[in-house]
């Protein structure tokens, strides 16, 4: 499958979007796309994330050929069908999440990874269904569920169909919870709106990458509503931890061992 790395300019060198430092791309890739100078965590697509997170080659994907049927026949400046095709061509993926069974440091898990390269990983019927299937698989197989979230929210082009995916995923998590299943969320930049207000907030343990945007309403909407400047660091991981909604902030390089540690603590 084609790999399309988010915000990575073609070429050997790139400028860090946070500190402006000139970086040697190969080095950045080795550092898991974290800026060696300032620690800025670049957004990465689902395949890159999976490669970083799971034991090599251990992912057995399911629901891989699910695709949207464009229930609203939606058209804005461009028909949604066309937009989907363009995104599919660009990313080599059919939609914005990859789910499957995998191993993390030898521990079997059900894994879901959202793909910010695909319409900002917005949630429509396909994302909702695949996430729900991942939850159900974790429940049936009594395996820990790890969801790496990133999303602009519900997918407008699927209207109410996408809003209802919030209810669908949350209801599946109620069943996982009742079965005593472990659910670990890894919130990455950006985890917002409809996804934040459903499965991304319901983890037994919620980890977050540093400085990830995590929140419900868009900062511009809030600024317009209250007619004031937003405080420094508003809706970032550190802010969310400060206010009690994130358990731990974990740099990308430590995610594997942290996830394994939590799985061991919860006896799964």
């Amino acid at each position, binding site marked *: 499958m084609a790999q399309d790395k988010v915000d990575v300019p073609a070429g050997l060198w790139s400028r860090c979007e946070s500190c402006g430092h000139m970086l040697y791309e190969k080095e950045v890739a080795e550092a898991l796309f974290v800026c060696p100078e300032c620690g800025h965590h670049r957004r990465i697509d689902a395949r890159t994330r999976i490669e970083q997170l799971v034991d090599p080659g251990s992912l057995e994907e399911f629901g891989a050929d699910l695709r949207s049927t464009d229930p609203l026949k939606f058209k804005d400046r461009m028909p949604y069908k066309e937009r989907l095709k363009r995104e599919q061509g660009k990313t080599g993926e059919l939609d914005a999440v990859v789910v499957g069974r995998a191993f993390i440091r030898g521990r079997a898990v059900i894994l879901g990874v959202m793909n910010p390269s695909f319409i900002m990983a917005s949630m429509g019927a396909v994302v909702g269904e695949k996430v729900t299937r991942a939850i159900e698989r974790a429940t049936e197989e009594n395996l820990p569920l790890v969801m790496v979230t990133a999303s602009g929210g*519900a997918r407008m082009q699927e209207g109410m169909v996408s809003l209802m995916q919030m209810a669908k995923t*949350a209801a599946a998590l109620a069943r996982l919870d009742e079965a005593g299943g472990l659910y670990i969320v890894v919130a990455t930049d950006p985890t917002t709106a409809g996804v934040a207000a459903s499965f991304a907030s319901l983890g037994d343990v919620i980890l977050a990458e540093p400085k990830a945007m995590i929140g419900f309403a868009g900062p511009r909407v809030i600024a317009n509503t209250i007619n004031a400047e937003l405080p420094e660091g508003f809706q970032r991981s550190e802010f969310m931890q400060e206010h009690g909604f994130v358990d731990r902030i974990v740099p990308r390089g430590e995610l594997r061992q942290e996830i394994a540690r939590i799985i061991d603590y919860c006896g799964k």
Partner: protein
Amino acid sequence: MSIEPTVMSAGGAAAAVGGFLEFEKPLVRIQHDIEEMEREQRETGRDHAADIRQQRTRFKTTLKRLYSSLTPWETVLVARHPKRPLSTDYLRMVFRDFCELHGDRAFADDKAIISGFARIGGHKVMFIGHNKGKEVKERIACNFGCAHPEGYRKALQKMKLAEKYGLPVVCLIDTQGAYPGIGSEERGIAYAIATNLMEMARLRTPIVCVVIGEGGSGGALGIGVGDRVAIFQHAFYSVISPEGCAAILWKTAEQRKHAAEALRLTARELAKLDMIDEIIPEPVGGAHRDPEKVAAGLEKYVVAALNDLKRLTLGTLIRRRQERIRRLGSFFASPSEAKARAATDVSTTRRSTSRTSRLRTRFSQREKVTT
């Protein structure tokens, strides 16, 4: 998923001049003519009764014509009409003996959501509803029905109380969305809504939800998961406001009419998508023209739904609710599954054929025995 702040400040009031909406312009002229004739009749004693009657009929037919073909954007305007009955009106018209219960036991009493014990038909229930407020002061106090996290926590806390004593929950939905503000984020609006979605999916008591006006995104869904979800004929339910959608996808809020159409947010479209169970009819010209009538429809629907749901065992109730939620928005295709399904279909057909033939043999054997 976000709501458009400009709408909130206008509160929909600016859209309706003299109680008439933009698209109701033809009615304004007729109404004006009627008033003129009445005044002249009063002042000069001339008899205009026949003309007035004729104009009144014209008013009615025009109203009927306008409302039989509302565009999605017009529906949005009707749903936001400043005179549209609110939860508090239905509380007065449909429910009896309301015993309000305040507060979320953690931070505050959010007036954007009201809750408490109430009676409807022969049922004791927990009433939960968005409150947009009537007068300016009340509207500001309840943030025009846009709840903070404490509102959703309050709703959940009351639902848990209802669960404990076996009271069904009735939710009336009418909000532009959850409140977008600093405090709202600091106190975890996303977590509060997410928690409600999960807990409402497994609450061990019947839940009936009705969208009575605006169904604004996650803020609506936060008290909108249930065994039955109905919507008023001219209400709407959407993932994002038409203004917000237009601003993002068309880069200009001017395209809100197109956005309203594209989002399929009307009751009829939602029924086609299987998002809702029933449409509660409104009188010609919208709920605000005959509140008692639409209230009667609401009461009939809620009482019938509760009668049905109360017959089920809790296990069946929860199972069916979760199956209902599981099916929502199954708009995806999978070539591999289609193939697999086709294969199983053949085998089930074969199985069912053999089963029928077995039954047939047994039946004929029995026939033989009797003959």
